[in-house]
């Protein structure tokens, strides 16, 4: 009887759930979003990063958008075509798209935008093969490429390829100092900038002339900076805030989970592809010996890190590409915890215990950004002690200090966090290419890893138009990198989007770009 009752209740519940799932989106309402930082400006063509990208993708539309299965969808572009040799990409614009000031969007704006990206954006490989852009008519843009470049479709989406108005930004000699990067922003996205108080909040209002009929549903987005995690948690619990993103603190996630009106989801982060790992400076002794690097990788209990240090909110990651990507690692060596093997490898490499039982003395840097990083550093130290490694933890005064130390190669080991940024060409190649060992630049090949075979496979994969062949090449690349172990791969960042499901319908998590995609389907129930 009881079982029947339970079954009935759950049937009723799933019916109710189905009813809400198919509920029609409603027009109107204000969504309050909170993030720990507010960027200084919202022009994604001159800066990447989520603080610019979240509001930037509401204010500016891009050529394409992606669903949660990595399929490109029309956005400003109605259609697109890659020529058989892969050297020509033709994009047709929709004819009803206008900027917030009423100017129509033309192929001239597309040309201007992508050229601005080429000059100003930190991610050079995105548009590096684009040699020229032709504009045969106002609605057609033709990209002439030096080489086939399959990554261009992902580069056309989210904050990596927004279209900015030439008639606004075209007259300046220094777009970085343009006042309309942060005030009176003219984009073509679903929302218009109403008010920006630097460091406090952004108010965005519905773009009534948005080119997608009937959208967006929200009248207004209030984007509030709340830097204290505790304060954000209380605001969510009290319904002062409807949604937050990039929440990563296990303790707070556990607390939020107890609230019946809140949903926590790890969806919407696969394109950003945030990975956390332990990197070795492969030019420093003893990490110039790959057996030492492998030994360290074997010595760490990745399951413990994920389940205990991160409360199960992170996901195990075993290679250079995020597990949520179509190119995610499949049959690479997972370096399952094996202390005996680790010790044997160190023996083999000639690092035998000295009188104090110590084989190697080395240092560890970590990102000075709160509890989890410090805890992880302490765990690494304690765990490596078990194989006779004495680790000195180096604490940087601030984030820039750490960034400087690592980008100048002044480290032995560091805990690091690197994002994939959509296509591997954009955010993965940079970490392993031997041509990308460049002192002073953050998040390049700071490991100073050099491997001709890896270079060659990446070169080939970056140009391969056949998706299946491309997948195989990236599997090959990852097998090679993981075997060489310039990095001990640990886990994904435990990012979660938290929203009040009693109020928010269609939260922006059903896209590979998550909150960095247009919120034109989000509505208030």
């Amino acid at each position: 009887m009881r079982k029947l009752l339970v079954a009935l209740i759950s049937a009723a519940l799933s019916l109710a759930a189905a009813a809400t799932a198919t509920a029609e989106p409603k027009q109107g309402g204000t969504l309050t979003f909170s993030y720990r930082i507010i960027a200084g400006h919202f022009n994604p063509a001159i800066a990447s990063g989520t603080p610019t990208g979240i509001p930037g993708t509401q204010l500016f539309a891009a050529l394409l958008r992606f669903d949660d299965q990595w399929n490109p969808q029309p956005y400003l572009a109605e259609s697109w075509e890659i020529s058989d040799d892969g050297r020509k990409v033709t994009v047709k614009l929709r004819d009803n798209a206008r900027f917030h000031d009423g100017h129509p969007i033309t192929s001239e704006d597309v040309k201007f935008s992508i050229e601005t990206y080429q000059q100003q954006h930190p991610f050079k490989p995105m548009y590096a093969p684009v040699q020229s852009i032709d504009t045969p008519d106002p609605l057609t843009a033709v990209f002439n490429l030096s080489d086939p470049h399959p990554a261009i479709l992902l580069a056309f989406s989210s904050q990596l390829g927004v279209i900015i108005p030439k008639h606004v930004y075209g007259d300046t000699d220094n777009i970085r100092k343009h006042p309309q990067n942060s005030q009176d922003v003219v984009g073509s996205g679903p929302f218009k900038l109403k008010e920006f108080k630097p460091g406090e909040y952004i108010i965005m209002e519905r773009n009534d002339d948005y080119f997608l009929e009937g959208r967006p549903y929200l009248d207004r987005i209030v984007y509030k900076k709340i830097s204290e995690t505790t304060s954000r948690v209380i605001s969510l619990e009290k319904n002062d805030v409807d949604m937050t993103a990039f929440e990563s603190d296990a303790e707070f996630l556990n607390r939020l989970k107890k609230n019946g009106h809140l949903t926590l989801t790890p969806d919407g982060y696969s394109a950003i592809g945030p990975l956390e790992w332990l990197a070795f400076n492969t030019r420093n002794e003893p990490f110039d010996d790959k057996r030492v690097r492998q030994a360290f990788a074997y010595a760490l209990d990745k399951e413990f890190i994920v389940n205990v240090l991160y409360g199960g909110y992170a996901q195990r990651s075993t290679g250079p590409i995020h597990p949520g990507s179509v190119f995610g690692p499949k049959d690479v060596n997972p370096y399952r915890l094996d202390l005996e093997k680790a010790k044997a490898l160190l023996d083999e490499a000639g690092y035998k215990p000295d009188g104090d039982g110590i084989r190697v003395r080395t240092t560890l840097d970590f990102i000075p950004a709160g509890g989890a990083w410090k805890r992880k550093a302490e765990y690494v130290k304690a765990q490596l002690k078990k194989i006779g490694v004495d680790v000195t933890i180096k604490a940087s005064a601030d984030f820039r200090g750490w960034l400087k130390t690592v980008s100048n190669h002044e480290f032995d080991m560091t805990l690091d966090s690197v994002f994939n940024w959509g296509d591997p060409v954009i955010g993965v190649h940079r970490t392993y290419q031997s041509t990308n060992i460049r002192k002073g630049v953050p998040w390049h090949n700071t490991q100073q890893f050099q491997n001709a075979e890896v270079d060659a496979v990446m070169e080939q994969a970056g140009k391969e138009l056949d998706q299946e062949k491309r997948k195989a090449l990236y599997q090959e690349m990852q097998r090679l990198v993981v075997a060489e172990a310039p990095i001990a791969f640990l886990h994904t960042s435990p990012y979660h989007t938290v929203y009040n499901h009693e109020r928010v319908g269609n939260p922006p998590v059903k896209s590979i770009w998550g909150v960095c995609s247009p919120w034109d389907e989000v509505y208030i129930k």
Partner: protein
Amino acid sequence: MTVIVHRLLNAVGLLLAVVVFNFILLSMVPGDIADTLAGESGGASAEVMAEIRRTYGLDQPFHIQLATYVGKVARGDLGMSYYFNLPVSELILGRVAPTLLLVVTALVLAILIGTLFGVIASRKPNGAFSHFVTVLALVGFSAPVFWTAFLLIVLFVAMLEIMPLSGLVDPTTPRGTLAWYLDVLHHLFLPVLSLSSIYLAAYSRLARASMMDVLGSDFIRTARAKGLGETSVTCKHALRNAVIPVITIAGLQFSHIFSGAVVVETVFTWPGLGTLAFESILRGDTPAIMGILFFSAMIVIVVNLLTDLAYRIVDPRIRSARNA
């Protein structure tokens, strides 16, 4: 008159020293705005970083950068914030009002209530109220302000749910309306309570001790012997003398209170100078940090001058001694 001219010249020299010294100190910090922007962008290229450094003149030799900056400040130009791409003076002025609102309200409340508590307590030094003031002073002064702030949040925001958690005002309230001002007051309550708790403690203790000191002196006995009422003795004779240390401390603390406000502002995301200073330091926004340091140095100097004036008004002895 010459005293004032002398003091003004001193002030200008001091400000110049502050500017040069701060510039040198900040240039020693590892990393600059190009690193910050690269860090926030999640990646960078050498070309873009060089471009950013060129844009902000960071590719110039150090002495040129310093000379350019001092020259600008002398002309009243504090430069542009790297991060917000706005004039620093505009950025600071936008933040002064919220900070002054917070700090002045907290300080005035603390001085008034604290002195009142102190005076009442001093009339019966062993009475219950006096002990209460002592305990209050001990607790208020020893509790870290962020802890007090969080306790207040737990009580008023999480449990009673009658106070807003953060910010200056709900951004959706129409600006300039009565509702807007009331909302600001509503948002002001907890930050002011947190900030004044420390100072209230100090002032009540100070006023109590100072009053007891004065009440024991000869001229008070004379006043009582003349047959004056106790209220008149306390308020007219004793308080006027006892309040001098309170003014001294208030002057000193007014300049210090900005540092206390940093913590309170951060906890409540109060958009004041403290938050701006704290975040500018984290971002390596050198012009903004320099501007704030310059501004607070100016405040300290001005407040010291004002404190001096206040003494003269309250205490005729200082007036005549300094004029001589």
